[in-house]
């Protein structure tokens, strides 16, 4: 009652800010031992030998494991259910290391400090192999990049071609053709909590894994594949998570911890250092793109021809999905009569890429939105106007998968955002010519809601009334810190006439929770939220039937509100109802539902940025920012705004600073610490305004749809477009480092 569309504080917020929440690195167990990794300093090499004598001689060292002493089972860390077919190219420790930071060995010791000292004492002999360090080099040399291990290690790992309409005819008939090259960097998630995992033996010969993960079932599937331990013998529990952004979607440490716990019969914990998190986990794939746009004089896009080359790094992970994912997002934004797309993903000997907020969307939107702005400039058309002339209308059918975009409100985001930003007046402002030059930029974006029509997009939820009147909600839920537990509790509470904090959410546990795909693909609110709403409705029906008996009333006349079951005849609290039922030996009301998605509507956004560029130093200050988002309905406007604020922070870094900067000659990562990898900190953040467009998505819970990933998607192109406006340049290599800006002047 009154829970949806309310600024309900995070249900675990007080625990977090009070320092009471126990993260994995805070957890300890009797007899727990610690692992430390030995990582490769070479980009591609055979591990010839390993000398652990000095390490083993250290007091407190328990053992050292490397490729000769662990199972050589190949796995793919991106799978999310047992039996999922993927390119299995990774091993806990392989005979060949494929990137600087690849895993060579693990040392286990009584303390973490001893384990780290022992890891440093290990000497490894490598035989270097030819390394492919750039996507260009990979694209120029298709075929095997491993040693007879195909289909793994074979370039390209994916090649998606798509043609819609008649691009050749459209280009021939166009009034203007503009070609733009855009490159996006390899960026890193930079979650406050580094990667960590704890595994320990449980009764019955099982192994328990505690992991700050995005899906306990994904951990179970990956660990089973990597270690050979049967998935039924793996009991995975999600720990509180100190940020993920996709970085913890793929298990990195979990197979090793599980293997060691099984081998040693001891609890084993590994917590990575910041540098290890940079070089040995996951990044956002780098993209080089080329887009040709055929325009009519009036500003209609007649056709686009897009070529995208994605560097997925040393292991496939889910990188083979990227070209298709990028296409899926590309074709949902504008009504383009003719489209040609050619997307390839290639291996290189660099840190693997993986899931990262938007999954290909920031890359493809950077390409499309920077390209469109430069085309608009050549046509002399205002960037807002050109977008308004091409954005898809609600209920449009996108041309690739043939799906409806639902009640997509891109045009509302654009027009209402432009008005609120005072776009026209700012655009009409005379161009600066001095040292400091201001400019404004806009970018539109779209994103999906869940995985439909891909892997079966379904989720199961169980709920029951507890003694005391609370309601328990059980599903494999993984709140990554953005408040999905609170949002889902609000949805359940709204239906049941309770408050969000009266919904008890069981942290994801593979033994207790029905299967869910996990927190990914912007699916929590739209998919899981609807599953929760339906389950809550079923539970509410059960409760009303029971309450009707207790109140001697017709069930149809019982309402659930303010924590009470009410009718004209009387009322009772849910706690009293539970007591009444327990007194009669009855089972308390419960419900479970499985919800299968049957569509995948689009969320939309339009972002507006004002920048000021110092043409002497090349520094860009983002001086004003407005984000307009089509969210259907904000279950919790405060959390939605928080998601958007965080998305803008990541996007500003993507536009201006962030790049792990892998040396194309040596494969070394130059920015492997917070001293060298620059994030936008508080001082760099502009004043942020958020405009929510709430026109309702009929298939979403209470009309809601996703905001999590899209919040970061349009940021970088909006800023780049603003810089190009300020300077009258055609900058398109991200990030816009001062050196690059000065070189363009």
């Amino acid at each position, binding site marked *: 009652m009154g829970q949806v569309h309310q600024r309900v504080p995070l249900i675990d917020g007080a625990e977090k800010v009070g320092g009471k929440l126990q993260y994995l690195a805070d957890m300890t167990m009797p007899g727990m031992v610690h692992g430390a990794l030995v990582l490769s300093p070479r980009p591609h090499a055979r591990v010839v030998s390993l000398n652990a004598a000095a390490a083993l001689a250290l007091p407190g060292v328990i053992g050292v494991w490397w490729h000769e002493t662990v199972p050589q089972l190949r796995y793919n860390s991106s799978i999310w259910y047992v039996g999922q077919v993927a390119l299995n190219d990774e091993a806990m420790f392989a005979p060949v290391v494929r990137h600087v930071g690849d895993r060579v060995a693990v040392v286990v010791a009584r303390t973490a400090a001893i384990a780290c000292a022992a890891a440093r004492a290990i000497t490894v002999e490598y035989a270097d192999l030819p390394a492919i360090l750039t996507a260009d080099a990979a694209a120029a040399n298709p075929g095997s990049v491993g040693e007879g291990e195909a289909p793994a290690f074979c370039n390209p790992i994916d090649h998606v071609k798509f043609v819609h309409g008649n691009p050749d005819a459209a280009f021939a008939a166009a009034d203007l053709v503009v070609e733009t090259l855009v490159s996006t960097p390899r960026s890193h998630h930079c979650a406050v909590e580094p990667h960590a995992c704890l595994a320990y033996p449980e009764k019955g010969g099982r192994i328990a894994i505690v992991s700050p993960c995005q899906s306990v079932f994904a951990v179970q599937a990956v660990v089973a594949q990597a270690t050979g331990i049967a998935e039924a013998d793996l009991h995975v529990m999600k720990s509180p998570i100190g940020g993920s952004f996709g970085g913890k979607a793929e298990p990195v440490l979990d197979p090793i911890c599980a293997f060691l716990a099984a081998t040693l019969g001891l609890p084993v914990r590994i917590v990575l250092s910041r540098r290890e998190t940079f070089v040995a986990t996951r990044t956002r794939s780098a993209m080089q793109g080329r887009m040709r746009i055929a325009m009519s004089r009036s500003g209609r896009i007649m056709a686009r021809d897009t070529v995208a080359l994605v560097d997925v790094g040393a292991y496939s992970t889910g990188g083979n999905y990227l070209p298709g994912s990028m296409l899926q997002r590309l074709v949902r934004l504008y009504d383009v009569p003719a489209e040609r797309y050619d997307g390839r993903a290639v291996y290189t000997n660099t840190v693997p890429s993986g899931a990262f907020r938007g999954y290909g969307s920031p890359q493809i939107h950077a390409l499309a939105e920077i390209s469109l702005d430069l085309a608009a400039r050549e046509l002399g058309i205002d960037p807002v106007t050109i977008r308004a002339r091409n954005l898809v209308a609600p209920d449009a059918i996108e041309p690739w998968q043939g799906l409806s975009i639902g009640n997509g409100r891109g045009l509302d985001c654009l027009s209402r955002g432009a008005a609120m930003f005072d776009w026209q007046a700012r655009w009409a402002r005379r161009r600066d010519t001095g*040292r400091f030059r201001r400019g404004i930029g806009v970018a539109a974006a779209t994103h999906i809601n869940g995985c439909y029509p891909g892997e079966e997009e379904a989720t199961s939820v169980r709920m029951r009334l507890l003694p005391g009147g609370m309601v328990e909600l059980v599903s494999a839920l993984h709140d990554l810190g953005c408040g999905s537990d609170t949002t889902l509790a609000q949805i359940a509470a709204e239906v049941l006439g309770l408050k969000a904090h009266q919904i008890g959410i069981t942290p994801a546990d593979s033994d207790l929770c029905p299967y869910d795909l996990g927190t990914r693909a912007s699916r929590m609110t739209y998919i899981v939220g609807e599953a929760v709403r339906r389950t809550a409705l079923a539970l509410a029906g059960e409760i009303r039937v029971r309450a009707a008996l207790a109140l001697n009333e017709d069930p149809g006349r019982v309402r659930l509100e303010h924590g009470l079951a009410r009718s004209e005849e009387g009322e009772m609290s849910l706690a009293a109802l539970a007591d009444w039922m327990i007194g009669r030996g009855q089972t308390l009301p419960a419900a479970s539902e499985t919800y299968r998605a049957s569509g995948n509507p689009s969320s939309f956004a339009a972002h507006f940025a004002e920048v000021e560029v110092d043409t002497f130093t090349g520094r860009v200050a983002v001086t004003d920012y407005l984000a307009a988002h089509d969210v259907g309905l904000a279950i919790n406007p405060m959390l939605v705004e928080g998601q958007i604020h965080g998305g803008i922070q990541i996007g500003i870094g993507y536009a201006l600073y962030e790049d792990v900067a892998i040396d194309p000659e040596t494969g070394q990562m130059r920015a492997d610490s917070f001293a060298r990898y620059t994030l936008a900190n508080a*001082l760099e953040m502009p004043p942020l305004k958020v405009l929510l467009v709430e026109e309702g998505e009929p298939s979403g819970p209470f009309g809601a749809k996703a905001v999590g990933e899209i919040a970061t998607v349009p940021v970088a192109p909006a800023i780049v477009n603003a810089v190009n406006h300020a300077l009258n340049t055609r900058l398109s290599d991200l990030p816009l480092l*001062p050196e690059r800006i000065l070189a363009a002047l």
Partner: protein
Amino acid sequence: MNMLTVARPRSLDAISALMSDGRPLHFIAGGTDMLIAGRLRPKDGILVDLGQVAELSGISVVGQHIRIGAATTVARLAEDPVLAARLPALSQAAAECGAVQIRNRATIGGNIAEAAPAADLLPPLWVADARLEIRDHDGSRLVAIADYIASPGRLITAILLPDPDPAPKSGFAKLGSRRELTISKLNLAMLMRQEGGRIVDLRIVAGAIGPRPQRLKLAEAALGGRFLSPKALQLFAKALSDEVDTAIPTRSSRVWKRRAIVGLGYDVIAAMTGHSPRHPLFAGAA
């Protein structure tokens, strides 16, 4: 005895006593460099914690000098009203050095002794002709900051700044990858007086264009003795860029730094002469 022990002396005399002990001494004050995980730490000798020595901390005016205890924190420098009036370049550099947490721990002596090429406090100290009070087993003496070379067993006990009346104008600016919590890719301090509108006694020192701070005499000559005018500023800008070309002729960062230094130079001149850097005077490109 071949291991590291720790001493926490409470006076300079106690430090002198340690100096005659014969074992290698390693001084630690804020610890913001030495204690970072992974840095090499000394394996033997005495680690001397300077945090308990009251004489090493504080800012005072002594005759014609400002005396800054070497263990005075950077945060303290940044908030000191005397420094803000007498050598704003140092106050500004202190305020922009590291992050709040670093400034609360790090000391001026440590910044000098660690001698990082990008150290933010060094250019202001160079332009101000600071002298360092150095103590070792031979006793105590003064050296000019430009002549100082760190060596084991030598301790900076104080920094002496000349304090002429009236105080010169001075200023500082830096460029890193973002505005705060950033290591300088370039920093610049200037000091000058104005006589009837002319800029005189101009001293300019830049950091992060060489292993140690660089005095920019060409740029000083380009602007020194002149009135502030677009023409003079253009000559000044060209001289600054030329200085960078000379200092780092082969570095890939040269192209960016030779222009960026003009931005810093204009920012500092503008601040010292009470202008906004957006004043039309500074609109001319390098």
